């Protein structure tokens, strides 16, 4: 089993045999023990727990024995779920998120939880509260998650643990969550595939919320085909999530291999502004050439309000986060300070429980929602969000999909942007618009920079057109492999 393992290969090898499923689990456990002391992608790793999880997997499921890495903000019955925060240390959910139930029903199982930025607040995974306190969380590395391609660099974030675990071969597939790029940007930095589905395509029930109008759970995988398989497993209406949408889930692997002739791809000129790395531009240009060769018509388009996406996002996402995180007050979940008065307990639990970036965002969100500032900030941002949506509506009148870089830069070194919040936020400038508009978007590897760091390109499509995304991403992936 030393070669690249696709979901199909793993499932084919196991062919419903429990002993073989255990073989596969031991193989990946061996990889975790071998590689993770340098990478630090996994949290709460436990060889007894994953066996218990495997017992929950439906033996007649289509993907029996498929081990899944799960971002630590997705609720998993029996597994500690901390959002990589001190405030949730010790919290074990009494239930599985809907996506996890669906994984078990299809024969897959929770193999490990993955490290992340605290509450998904970050773009480098450096804000994990377990960064440097590994012993507390059954983590193999006593430091931040590293990029497996070059361990001096960050894996991106916030789903950095999920992306690094997949890229390092410690798990075959993983789940992440994406509020402003948290699946796609780390996928791009680590050289793997990451999909943010249409808002409402996948149930958020059991996802510990960050920005409820933006969050989506999605797959991080080594190939487009595996991403299609994973979306098929997790997608669908869920009565427990009133924002999930009741439209049928197509067979996403069906569209793989379909030609692209006659398709129109739009490349927005605003995505090539100052501050974009030349390595990134080169790879996107090559991607454009590949698409032309595949018979696609490439058009220059305009998404005129792109530069406002980051400020809009940091008002809306923090406003929603500050309300969502109000529940962490020491009463029910995780950490509680030992104070004698209720008020002191709230104030001190939250001071000790949240890290600096979480505090920054809670304060910003509280401010933009506060009396006297609501209209000037929050409402203004909601109106500007409408303009971003209109930009996409106009663009999709002339093209089928939109091609952009996933991130303006390559992966960066630890500490490089840690003390400059705005520089860190700008690393999501190209991924945020899809969350604001609720459209699906994928990051696909597009080759390496001169220094050997991965570059990803992003493909966006109209609402619920994941099939078109898979079709184009698969054709691109296949063609790139030939080079």
């Amino acid at each position, binding site marked *: 089993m030393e070669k690249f393992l696709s979901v199909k290969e793993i499932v084919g090898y196991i062919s419903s045999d429990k002993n073989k499923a255990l073989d596969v689990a031991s193989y990946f456990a061996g990889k975790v023990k071998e590689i993770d002391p340098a990478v630090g992608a996994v949290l709460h790793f436990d060889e007894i727990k994953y066996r218990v999880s495997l017992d929950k997997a439906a033996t007649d499921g289509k993907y029996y024995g498929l081990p899944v890495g799960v971002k630590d903000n997705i609720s998993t019955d029996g597994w500690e779920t901390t959002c990589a925060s001190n405030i949730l240390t010790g919290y074990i959910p009494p239930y599985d998120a809907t996506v996890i139930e669906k994984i078990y029903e299809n024969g897959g199982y929770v193999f490990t939880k993955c490290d992340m930025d605290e509450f998904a607040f970050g773009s480098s995974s450096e804000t994990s509260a377990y960064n440097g306190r590994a012993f507390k969380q059954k983590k193999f590395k006593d430091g931040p998650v590293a990029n497996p391609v070059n361990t001096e660099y960050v894996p991106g974030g916030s789903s950095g643990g999920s992306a690094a675990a997949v890229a390092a071969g410690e798990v075959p597939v993983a789940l992440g969550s994406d509020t402003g790029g948290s699946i796609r940007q780390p996928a791009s930095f680590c050289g793997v595939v990451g999909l943010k589905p249409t808002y409402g395509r996948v149930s958020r029930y059991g996802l510990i919320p960050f920005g409820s109008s933006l969050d989506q759970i999605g797959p991080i995988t080594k190939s487009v085909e595996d991403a299609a398989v994973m979306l098929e497993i997790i997608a669908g209406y869920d009565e427990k999530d009133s924002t999930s949408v009741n439209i049928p889930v197509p067979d996403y692997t069906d569209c793989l291999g379909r030609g692209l002739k006659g398709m129109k791809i739009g490349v927005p000129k605003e995505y090539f502004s100052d501050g974009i790395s030349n390595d990134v531009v080169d790879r996107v240009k090559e991607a454009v050439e590949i698409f032309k060769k595949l018979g696609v018509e490439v058009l220059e388009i305009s998404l005129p309000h792109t530069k406002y996406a980051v400020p809009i996002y940091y008002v809306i996402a923090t406003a929603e986060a500050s309300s969502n995180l109000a529940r962490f007050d020491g009463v029910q979940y995780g950490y509680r300070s030992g104070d004698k008065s209720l008020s002191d307990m709230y104030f*001190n639990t*939250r001071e000790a429980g949240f890290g600096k970036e979480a505090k920054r965002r809670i304060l910003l969100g*509280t401010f933009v929602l506060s009396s006297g500032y609501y209209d000037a900030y929050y409402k203004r941002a909601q109106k500007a969000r409408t303009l971003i949506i209109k930009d996409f509506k106009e663009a999709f009148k002339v093209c089928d999909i939109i091609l952009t870089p996933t991130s303006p830069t390559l992966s960066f070194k630890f500490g490089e942007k840690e003390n400059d919040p705005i520089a860190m936020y700008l690393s999501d400038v190209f991924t945020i618009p899809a969350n604001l508009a609720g459209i699906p978007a994928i990051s696909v590897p597009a080759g390496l920079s001169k220094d050997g760091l991965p570059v990803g390109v992003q493909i966006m499509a109209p609402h619920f057109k994941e099939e078109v995304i898979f079709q184009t991403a698969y054709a691109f992936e296949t063609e790139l492999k030939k080079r």
Partner: protein
Amino acid sequence: MENEFNIDAISKLARMNLSGEESESLREDLRNILSYVNMLSELDLEDIEPTSHVVEIENVFRDDVVRESHTADKLFGLISDEKYEGYFFKVPKIIEE
């Protein structure tokens, strides 16, 4: 606008203490972020409808039938003893003597 930002008032609203040093550096960060966010005042948004949700959602009705949900036994079995009594969460005294 940014001068009006009062970190003590906001941290009180957020029910979150901040140490002196932390308060100082967060105030600086938030000032910078807010002045960046003020870019949005360039836009003419007079006649634009705000978006709070991106997909059409309809109200969902269902029959009110009893079914098994998360059980209190399981829930309380997972949390530490000093936090609950019976099926109730226990908190410090609210009414002063």
